[in-house]
């Protein structure tokens, strides 16, 4: 035992090195002031006005989804409320640096659809008729100069053929597509209006119908495609430059509105150029996703959003199809090794239109596009928590708001904290004397670690300090001090049994450690469960509780215990000096007691 026990001095040195590393991390990444919450610092308020007077339930559902989006990752404790009959108010603490992204996250409808590309056209003005008739001419001019098609299906291939998974890409990007070239569009091709039985085979519109249609779009669709064009921002407009959805001809206008069972004309903005697409009905809906996450795939540099489709028959689109996973497999089988494209459409705009590099069996896929970390994360969150049931006014009211609590509250909280900690230290010094110094030092160390962690986490996870949070940290002082009390009382008990201090420290530690671990397991358990299951403020609380418990354990194991062991080497402590806190008098063992013969009961 003794041989394997690390020397207290070494543990202390390593521990302080750890703290130094922690603080250098703070110096490198975070600011020296913790981010304060809505109640102490104020933040940004975004008021979203819903269009077309939504029902109460829809508004509440939208509120819930937005709440999940802003509070889904991190613990910033943003607040989302409904206001009046058609408004949703989002308040986010701090002066948000990425205000535009935040706005996007909040108001994005996040209706994701996978559609098949029938025609595509890089230059809205010049070759607007490229798709007409469709026979013989290569209609798909992809002007994409850089790899937007990259990595499609990389995820899926990983499970199927790991060897091919590293294909990064750009390979397909310059290929002129010829999706519409084989067949002339004729009367037998499925029409795109709301008919449910296009093929006349007695079945509803299926994925296969969409595949066929994409090969040969009907004349009406092509006409609408030609009638509409894209402006610089990627909006669909008619010949007069008015939004496509307001075009007089209702048949054309229908193509500019993103509905699942209607073909769509849409645009993609990529690096300054605009590409116009004619897209089939939606073959996979965003509601069919089971998960979405932002990441950088291996061997690549750009952020993508990975998605995972479920195979839920009930959610399947079109209705009656076996489910997204199977649909996607079918599509990928049809599209693989061809130059035919499919498009990922978000809220009516094409995010990217890649080719299929491999057959995807498990419904896993990636969305690439012009993402950085923030936008990818924002999109992934939006997709994960579902599409909003209502649409919002284009320009929400965004304003800075002040703190909701008076300024003196923070001051009072901090004063109270200082007084409280001071009194705790004083009490420990009076009661434990020499050992009290260890308590004081331990509290300082714990405080400095907690502060550094709060700084780091406000940078990494958006952790903000609210007044209740500060109160929680102050309360945690008592619990932290309790771990020292348990330890010291154990040492005293051991010494009352007649052991010397140096022995008592070790044997007392062995027993205090078990108690401490058991008790802290309860705390960590509660913190974990609350963090996982709750949201908003409660999540933040779980976070702070878990943090302070772990810091407490770290300080006890790596600072307090080695410190006491170290001090036990010195005569001042182990000789039972009056000021050591472990003298006979303070233990209460100084009076020669009349020992009951025959042992204690």
């Amino acid at each position, binding site marked *: 035992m003794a041989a394997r026990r690390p020397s207290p001095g070494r543990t202390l040195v390593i521990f302080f090195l750890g703290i130094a590393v922690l603080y250098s991390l703070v110096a490198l990444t975070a600011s020296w002031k913790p981010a304060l919450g809505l109640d102490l610092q104020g933040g940004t308020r975004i008021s979203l006005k819903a269009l077309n007077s939504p029902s109460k339930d829809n508004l*509440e559902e939208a*509120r*819930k989804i937005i709440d999940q989006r802003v509070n889904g990752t991190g613990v910033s404790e943003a*607040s989302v*409320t*409904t*206001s*009046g009959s058609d408004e949703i*108010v989002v308040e986010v603490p701090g002066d948000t640096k990425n205000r535009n992204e935040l706005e996007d996250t909040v108001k994005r409808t996040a209706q994701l659809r996978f559609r098949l590309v029938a025609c595509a056209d890089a230059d809205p003005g010049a070759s607007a008729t490229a798709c007409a008739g469709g026979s013989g001419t290569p209609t798909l001019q992809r002007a994409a100069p850089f790899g937007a098609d990259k990595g499609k299906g990389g995820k899926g291939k990983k499970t199927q053929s790991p060897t091919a998974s590293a294909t990064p890409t750009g390979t397909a990007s310059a290929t002129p597509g010829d999706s519409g070239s084989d067949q002339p569009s004729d009367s037998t091709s499925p029409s795109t209006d709301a008919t449910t039985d296009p093929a006349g085979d007695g079945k509803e519109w299926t994925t296969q119908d969409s595949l066929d249609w994409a090969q040969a779009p009907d004349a009406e669709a092509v006409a609408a495609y030609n009638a509409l064009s894209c402006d610089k921002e990627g909006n669909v407009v008619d010949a007069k430059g008015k939004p496509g959805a307001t075009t007089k001809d209702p048949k054309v206008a229908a193509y500019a509105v993103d509905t699942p069972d209607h073909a769509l004309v849409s645009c993609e903005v990529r690096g300054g150029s605009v590409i116009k697409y004619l897209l089939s009905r939606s073959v996979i809906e965003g509601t069919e996703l089971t998960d979405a996450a932002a990441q950088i795939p291996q061997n690549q540099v750009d952020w993508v959003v990975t998605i995972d489709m479920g195979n839920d028959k009930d959610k399947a689109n079109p209705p009656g199809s076996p489910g997204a996973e199977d649909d996607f497999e079918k599509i990928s089988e049809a599209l693989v090794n061809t130059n035919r494209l499919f498009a990922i459409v978000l809220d009516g705009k094409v995010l990217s239109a890649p080719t299929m590099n491999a057959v995807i069996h498990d419904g896993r896929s990636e969305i690439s596009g012009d993402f950085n970390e923030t936008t990818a994360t924002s999109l992934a969150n939006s997709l994960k928590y579902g599409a909003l049931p209502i649409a919002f006014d284009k320009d929400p009211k965004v*304003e*800075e*708001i*002040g*703190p909701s*609590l*008076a*300024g*003196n509250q923070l*001051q*009072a909280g901090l*004063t*109270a904290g200082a*007084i*409280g900690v001071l*009194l*705790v230290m004083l*009490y420990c010094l009076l*009661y434990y004397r020499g050992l009290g110094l260890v308590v004081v030092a331990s509290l300082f160390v714990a405080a400095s670690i907690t502060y550094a962690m709060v700084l780091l986490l406000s940078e990494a996870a958006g952790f903000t300090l609210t*007044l209740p949070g500060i*109160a929680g940290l102050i*309360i945690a002082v*008592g*619990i932290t*001090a*309790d771990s020292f*009390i348990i330890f010291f*009382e154990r040492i005293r*008990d051991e010494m*009352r049994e007649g052991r010397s201090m140096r022995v008592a420290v070790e044997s007392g530690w062995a027993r205090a450690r078990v*108690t401490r671990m*058991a*008790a802290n*397991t*309860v*705390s960590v358990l*509660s913190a974990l469960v*609350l963090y*996982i299951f*709750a949201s*908003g*403020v*409660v999540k933040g*609380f779980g976070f702070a509780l878990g943090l302070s418990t772990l810091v407490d354990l770290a300080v006890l194991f790596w600072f307090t215990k080695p410190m006491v062991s170290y001090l036990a080497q010195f005569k001042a402590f182990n000789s039972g000096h009056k000021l050591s806190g472990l003298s006979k*008098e*303070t*233990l*209460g063992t100084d009076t020669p*007691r009349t020992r009951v*013969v025959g042992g*204690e009961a």
Partner: protein
Amino acid sequence: MGKMSRLGNDLYQGRKSIDFTGRRLLWYGVTILIVAAAVAGLAVRGLNFGVEFTGGTTFSVAVGAGNASQDNADALRDAIGAANIENADQPVVTTAGDQALTVQVQNLSPEERQQVEDVIEQQFPDVAPNDVSTSDVGPSWGKEVAQRAAIGVGIFLILVVIFIWAYFREWKMSVAALIALIHDVAITVGVYAWSGFEVTPAAVTGLLAILGFSLYDTVVVFDKIKENTTKLRRRNQSYGDAANLAVNQTLVRSINTSIVALIPIGAILYVSAVQLGASSLQDLALAQFVGMGAGVYSSVMLAPRVIVNLKSLETEVQEQARRAKARQRAEAADRYAAVPAVTAGRPARETGPEGLEDDDSFRIDVEETDDESVQPAQSPTVAGRGRTVPTQHRPVAPSSSSGRNQPVRDPRSKRGKK
């Protein structure tokens, strides 16, 4: 300090002992009374949920460019707070941009709404009534947030019960810890109910903190109980005595913990009372103070009692208690007479030393009976006790030294070892 330390030592050695496990009726009565009072408060007065839970009313005050300063917001907050409007006693006033203030209060009746508007007008005479717009806000803590939190707490409790069960190898400790927890939470909720404090999200997190603290403190005390009760046989203690000793031994720790834990909260209470007057911070601190106090109290006074009560229903524990009691009586009566009789497993005959003869109990450990004992005589049943008088192993003869009948003693080498 010396006195406290001496007390600590005495408590540790068991020379001073406070009965923390007995007088169950009294203390259960007290507990039930407290919890009943809390539940009654909940039923009679209900909880005063804040804007975050119920939704409320928002006043938007266009105070004109540049006037939306923090000072004005604070002034308005104080003015509305001082106006004694029932549902607007703790308004949340924030600046919005640089030319508007928003005031958020609980749901108001039309009259109250008018009162608030009057206060705003007094505060900002320049603001035309048209510049004050009101709208209803929905709760930000809707049902499903509360639901998710409740699910989280539920799962946490299940996990904790399993953890305590696994750690102490004793489901009864889980039950006792849960009872103590319910007691603490009931008291805290009761404080909110009777005082009419606004229940804010901060209050909820405070309650969760108490949840954790209560269990944590109980686990610390139980750990000592477990340690003390594992070697009952050897120490000749009953479960109840051992548990009581454990609570006494941790008493100093419990006192210190409560002092150290309550000092910071006390400081918050004091400072917020002096500096701020009524505020949500003060409410939170007061509830925490009571809750934490209850946590320490219940882990000393309630949880050990419950566990001892539950354990005392076990036959094994009952037997051990009887054994220990007999041993104690025997020692008290005649220390030395008891020694061989017990250790060697030799029963005294019916009219043995007073201590052993006592009708309350003493059952011989059959395992410990020496083999070379004399033919066991079939012993008669003591009337009314339903217990078998231990078999007589040795002949008994009048002894000159003690003046009464004594068993014939074996030679020292044949006696059982102590």
